[in-house]
């Protein structure tokens, strides 16, 4: 508490930087990992980081539109997770694996 009091007051910049950092971690996870489960979890992390920027800007502008957008984003994330996981189960049945490389037959 005492050590944190020396830091500058938290502004919208801090939230945007934190949101960008979390988005970058998710992006690295999507492009870096081969396990489809981890890739999907990184996607959820990226969507949630975007929500954080929405809510911070909503607070900055003093209206609720950013928060409503974050609600829509959560609903879209839920739908995305359901469809992506069922594609993953279909991939597991067809190929017996959950790696990105298991779906590489169309590679030119």
């Amino acid at each position: 508490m005492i050590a944190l009091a020396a830091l500058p007051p938290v502004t919208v910049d801090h939230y945007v930087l934190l949101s960008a950092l979390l988005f970058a971690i998710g992006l690295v996870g999507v492009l870096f990992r081969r396990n489809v489960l981890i890739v999907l979890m990184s996607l959820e992390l990226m969507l949630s980081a975007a929500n954080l920027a929405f809510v911070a800007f909503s607070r900055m502008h003093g209206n609720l539109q950013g928060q409503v957008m974050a609600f829509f984003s959560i609903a879209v994330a839920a739908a995305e997770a359901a469809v992506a996981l069922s594609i993953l189960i279909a991939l597991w049945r067809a190929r017996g694996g959950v790696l990105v490389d298991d779906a590489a037959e169309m590679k030119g």
Partner: protein
Amino acid sequence: MGDTGFYIFGALSVVGALLMVTARNPLHGVLWLVVSFLGFAGLFGGLGAHFLAAIQILVYAGAILVLFLFVIMLLNLRPDDVSRMPALSLRGGAGGFLLGVGGFCAVVGMVVLGVPGGAFPRKVFPLDGPGGGAAEIAGPLFSEFLLPFEAVSLLLLAAIVGAVALTKRRLP
């Protein structure tokens, strides 16, 4: 609460995210993502979005991540499967790392140097912002954003039908 909470919950979300991305076992990844989303919920609460903080825990940590856990159990990933999974793909890895670091540096540059339009005020949040309780959210959600709300309900219906159609076993 505001400033101290930002650093505590921000550190929690970043640490959870880093451990999720580097987890070898997807089961551990799900649990670390729960930690990260708890940090997100704390950040939303610090911004005054209390209903969104509750939804973050109920829908993300409660529903979506439990769905991930169900799939991991359904696929019955044995320990040897988990251990022979390559953790990283190096070919796409270098590009992904550069893209992530480059994107983060771009945002840092925009915040430090300012955007060309100049619409990025470096100001402390007002203390008397609009509340984010359920009643306050319901107002714009059911009046101004009614059409997107109904579109989201159609999207969820399509996702349900799509998930059932994709996982249904074909009869011989």
